[in-house]
């Protein structure tokens, strides 16, 4: 199971990094999302992988899984969700203001400048 999880994290982060280096906003946001999935899985694994064990003390349980990483992952998911929502709105605003979805600032500024001169 460790190997499977490691491969999944590796695959997710490599796809995420590749997409983040693209020139348009949508792939960049997708890349960020994939990277945050990878990070959440990694964080989860930092408490060791335990199967069929409760995180809360109970009378029947003989062994436990570590509850802290679960709480950390939950926090990270909430923060990541808020950030993704914000960056999507920012990207949409940039798209509606400039008419294209390039990430690069320099190209966009000159293009916007040209548009401004033309109109």
């Amino acid at each position: 199971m460790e190997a499977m999880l490691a491969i999944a994290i590796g695959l997710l982060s490599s796809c995420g990094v590749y997409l983040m280096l693209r020139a348009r906003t949508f792939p960049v946001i997708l890349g960020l999302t994939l990277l945050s999935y990878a990070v959440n899985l990694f964080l989860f694994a930092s408490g060791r992988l335990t199967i069929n064990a409760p995180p809360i003390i109970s009378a029947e349980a003989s062994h436990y899984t570590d509850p802290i990483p679960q709480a950390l992952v939950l926090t990270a998911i909430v923060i990541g969700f808020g950030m993704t929502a914000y960056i999507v709105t920012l990207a949409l605003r940039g798209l509606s203001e400039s008419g294209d979805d390039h990430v690069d600032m320099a190209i966009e500024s000159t293009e916007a400048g040209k548009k401004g001169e033309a109109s």
Partner: protein
Amino acid sequence: MTSFLVMHSAILPVLIPFVSSIVLLLAAGRHPSMQRGIAAVSTLLLLAASAHLLWLTDHLPPIAYALGEWQPPFGIVLVADRLAALGVMLSAILGAAALLYASAGFDRKGRHFHAIFQLQLVGINGAFLTGDVFNLFVFFEVMLLASYILLAHGGGLDKSRSGFAYVTLNLAGSAVFLIALGLIYGTLGTLNLADIAIQLQTVSSDQAALVRLAGALLFTVFLLKAAVLPLSFWLPHAYAAAGAPVAALFAIMTKVGIVALLRVETIAFGPAAATADLVGDWLVIAALATIAVAALGVLAAKRLQTLIAWLVLSSAGVLLLLAPLGEREITAAGLYYLVQSAIAGAAFFLLSGLISDARGAAADHLSAARSNMPVRLKLGFLLLAATAAGLPPFSGFIGKLMLLSSVSDASMAAAIWTVILIAGLLTTVALAKAGSRLFWETPSEAEALPPATQTAAHWRQTAACFGLMTIAVLLVVLARPLSDFCQRTAMQLHEPADYIHAVIPQPETVNRVNRP
């Protein structure tokens, strides 16, 4: 009542802006003067609470505040020592000035300016006060999320574009931060900073490599926040695009990264054998490169606000020398430099806003424009330019002098002196050029842009800007007490045992379970 205040003094700088930001969210639709009133009351309370905390920490050992009485290392803990109190005080002063400036009309450009502004203060103060690396992450995120919104406040293509790059970069930084935290928890089994320091002393050799990797990743994130080369290219874009009061508050955000780096290094990673050599000469080189590039950026800037953003970057480079050199005298000198550069930088951003308003369509572009600039703006520019360039008798000079004389015994002293002094010269040249362009050059009739329609700045803007300038001058007059305080802060910082003892008084009684 007094004992209650003393007991909870560590959490007040986080709690006050947090409560008021919630109240402000509810009052979003109300009259602006009511929102301004709530924000002003909250900021004044924050100033009082910060001053109280500063006084307390100067007379007491570090104060550990366990939320919900969960005893460390298991619960969430805030720790107020002199460094944290100094940072909180600084953010309260800058926050008050920026808020006063914004209350002249900038806050009306969006619905939730005041709520987000208070949230920004929550994040900054929390990042200074937290005693737990995961909460450091959370407060960083609160700070950044608020800063994203403040950066975009006022709208405009420039802002959403530089905003996108800034957010993407910081989200990638957050991912790296979380990986570092996962590694720390996976190897040491704790995220409490004091407990990390204890666990690092006894880390087994097969775990050492992973811990070193975690430390390296953590420092990378702090260096991204502190904008050290090569992770610094976002800063001039973002700071130049922000509105003047927002940029003034941002002047402290690079300092948060530096303080976090300093704290984690001096308390946990520096004293441990396995990770002692993580921060070393490479950081000195990176810091010097940052200073050099920032000096060139100052020379090349086409707008006053971009120029100031490069100045902020330059001061961040100087401050990064503190962590690797790691001596008490240097830390003390650096802390004085931190205070003065934050205040002067923020005042400069506000002044740039005033100058920009007075020049009409030419704004803060370093080109000729017709304007009837009040004399006080010119004098203000002279004062701040001299401070930023480190000319006597202003606080920038004292800060630089203390820093240079304290590093004279360090291993790379020659390189540090050369780079800082040449950068200072270039900065002087650039600022002289900028000043003569802004104030003296008159345009030919053909290329003149329309002058400002509204001439007089609002009294709040002027008061905020010149209030900060007065503090910058006071830093010269009160250099002795402040540098004494910085000495005591540095002493405390280099005695991590006190910090650890305050958080975990009896480490041997902590009940730990062996993990697979």
